[in-house]
């Protein structure tokens, strides 16, 4: 199968959906013809679809999301980009209090089919304001779905599902994933929300990982294989809805689980997954539930510091060995 990058896969999804449905349009800072998106995801789309459907906005994150909400509830399907995930903090009211609650608050009268795309993640030394992973904030908000694709294939299939759905979707990308290549079918496909993907099968320990951590988990698994520890890597692909069954199925097989997530450990993604297992599958466990995550610091700038706080293969291997 042909290989394309995560970035290209996202762009293909946007392009195909914009061709298919005239109500799909994009808005965000510098996404248009002059820049093509800070990470070039939307590069070339303004040229094909025009400035009306690929709209450069002022630096007004609240208004970007609020505008998308208003368009979504009146028949459009906006895809908003927030240039860095950290900056969603500026639009938190529009995301969590408006977009996510409109359907419920108004008794199901309104649909808000809006996609918010944003890159999370550290690893490029741009410090505390441009490196966070904040998925857990949005996971904690009912009414919005949260997607966390780790491969080009998942990115394309999930983004198309997000755009076609009837609900707001918080679509998390990761800076280090953009250049990653992977197989993506030429033909049309979508990937349903709430269906995890077993990225590697194994028998001894389950690792649940998301976004860029999936790749580190796979590296760790390859390494551990040499030491005769067979690791299964489960990628939930969406955090809301979350495929509990897939995680539990794996845990029932292995009896051991390590949850790996780049976000800060406390009250993060790994906490929820650990809590689910502890509540619903504890009887199958043969060991404590391990979490590998950022050690509750802001992201520092300097390379040795940043490397130290981002979970890496070594940390994953260590956690697996502690319970294997």
């Amino acid at each position, binding site marked *: 199968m042909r290989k394309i990058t995560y970035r290209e896969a996202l762009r293909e999804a946007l392009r195909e959906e914009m061709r298919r449905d005239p*109500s799909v*349009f994009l808005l965000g800072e510098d996404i248009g013809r002059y820049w093509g998106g800070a990470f070039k995801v939307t590069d070339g789309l303004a040229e094909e679809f025009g400035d*009306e*459907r690929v*709209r450069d*906005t*002022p630096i*007004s994150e*609240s*208004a970007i*999301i*609020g*505008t*998308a*909400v*208003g*368009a*979504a*509830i*009146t*028949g*459009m399907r*906006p895809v908003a980009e927030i240039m860095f995930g950290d900056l969603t903090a500026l639009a938190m*009211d*529009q995301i969590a*209090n*408006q977009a996510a609650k*409109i*359907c*419920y*608050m*108004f*008794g*199901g*009268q*309104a*649909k*808000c*089919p809006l996609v918010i795309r944003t890159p999370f993640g550290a690893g490029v030394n741009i410090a505390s304001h441009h490196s966070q992973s904040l998925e857990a904030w949005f996971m904690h908000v*009912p*009414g919005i*779905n949260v997607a966390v694709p780790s491969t080009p294939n998942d990115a394309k299939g999930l983004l198309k599902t997000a755009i076609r759905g*009837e*609900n707001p979707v918080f679509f998390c990308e990761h800076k280090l994933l953009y250049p990653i290549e992977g197989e993506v079918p030429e033909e049309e496909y979508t990937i349903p929300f709430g269906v995890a993907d077993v990225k590697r099968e194994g028998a001894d320990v389950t690792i649940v990982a998301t976004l860029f951590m999936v790749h580190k988990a796979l590296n760790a698994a390859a390494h551990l294989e040499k030491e005769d520890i067979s690791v299964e890597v489960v990628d939930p692909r969406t955090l809301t809805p979350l495929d509990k069954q897939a995680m539990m199925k794996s845990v029932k097989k292995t009896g051991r689980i390590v949850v790996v997530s780049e976000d800060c450990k406390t009250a993060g993604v790994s906490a929820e997954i650990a809590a689910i297992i502890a509540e619903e599958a504890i009887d199958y466990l043969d060991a404590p539930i391990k979490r590998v995550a950022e050690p509750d610091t802001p992201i520092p700038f300097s390379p040795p510091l940043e490397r130290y706080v981002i979970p890496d293969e070594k940390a994953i291997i260590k956690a697996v060995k502690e319970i294997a």
Partner: protein
Amino acid sequence: MAQNLEREKLIGMYRKMLEIRLFEEKVFELYGQNLVPGTIHLYAGQEAIAVGVCSNLGKDDYITSTHRGHGHCIAKGADLKRTMAEILGKETGYCKGKGGSMHIADFNIGMLGATAVVGAGLPIAVGAGLSIKLRKTDQIVACFFGEGASNQGTFHESINLASTWKLPVIFVCENNLYAMGTRQSIAMNVENIADRAVAYGIPGVVVDGNDVLAVYEAVQKGVERAKKGEGPTLIECKTYRQKGHSRVDPAKYRPKGEVEEWLARDPIKRLKEKLLQTNTLTKTEIQRIEKEVVTKIEEAVKFAIESPYPSSEEALEDVYA
């Protein structure tokens, strides 16, 4: 007085304003009887604004509303029964009891909903305006908000965006002098919110918010401008919140005489006098209208009170579409 306005339209305005006033009085009364859960923010005194604005709008046009939204709903044509039922938390309410007083919506008549986060409705109105532009219809959006909301960041971001993109949005600031207990002068160093329009390169208009025809005409100009593709207008309606901020507020912070002064400028009283003076309506006709409105509201109250509460499990529905 706008001679060019048809008699029917004028009478319709009077009727709506009265509906709002009497509706709010009933809400107040029901609150006292413990039939209204939560809190309420009454629109009494500001009726000329909602009605003056919405008289320019058709069913397809949009409005966004606030915590003080009953008047906006009624002016836009919402059913009094379902509005009252929502306020009472009943299954038959617009939002099946999930929204309540601060979150009424009727998407069938373009009432895009009230948000209780002050200032949060502005960018949503901008989005509706963008949607109109992209869909190439000739709808209009009217966005209601208070003078207190004009200090929120969203006010700035939203009007800037609407102006830059020349969207068909009328920003209607209802300056009732207070945001809860905070007098305007405590929260800003300008007298006219309309002057803020300069910051976005759009017209800013100050209008007597207790004169429904003045509001009507200012909005009409804004609508014309918007339909020509020239973008938004900011209209500040000077008015007064006749009651406390919410049901619990004794509003002791108001200087002596202020309420009386404004009650003398009551928008309904003023329109009524005009209608009589210009022989648009006779006293008898007015009394008949009043009676009809009273009956309509009583029916709404009866409907709302007799409607059942939603069943508990309904709480788990509608989280997702």
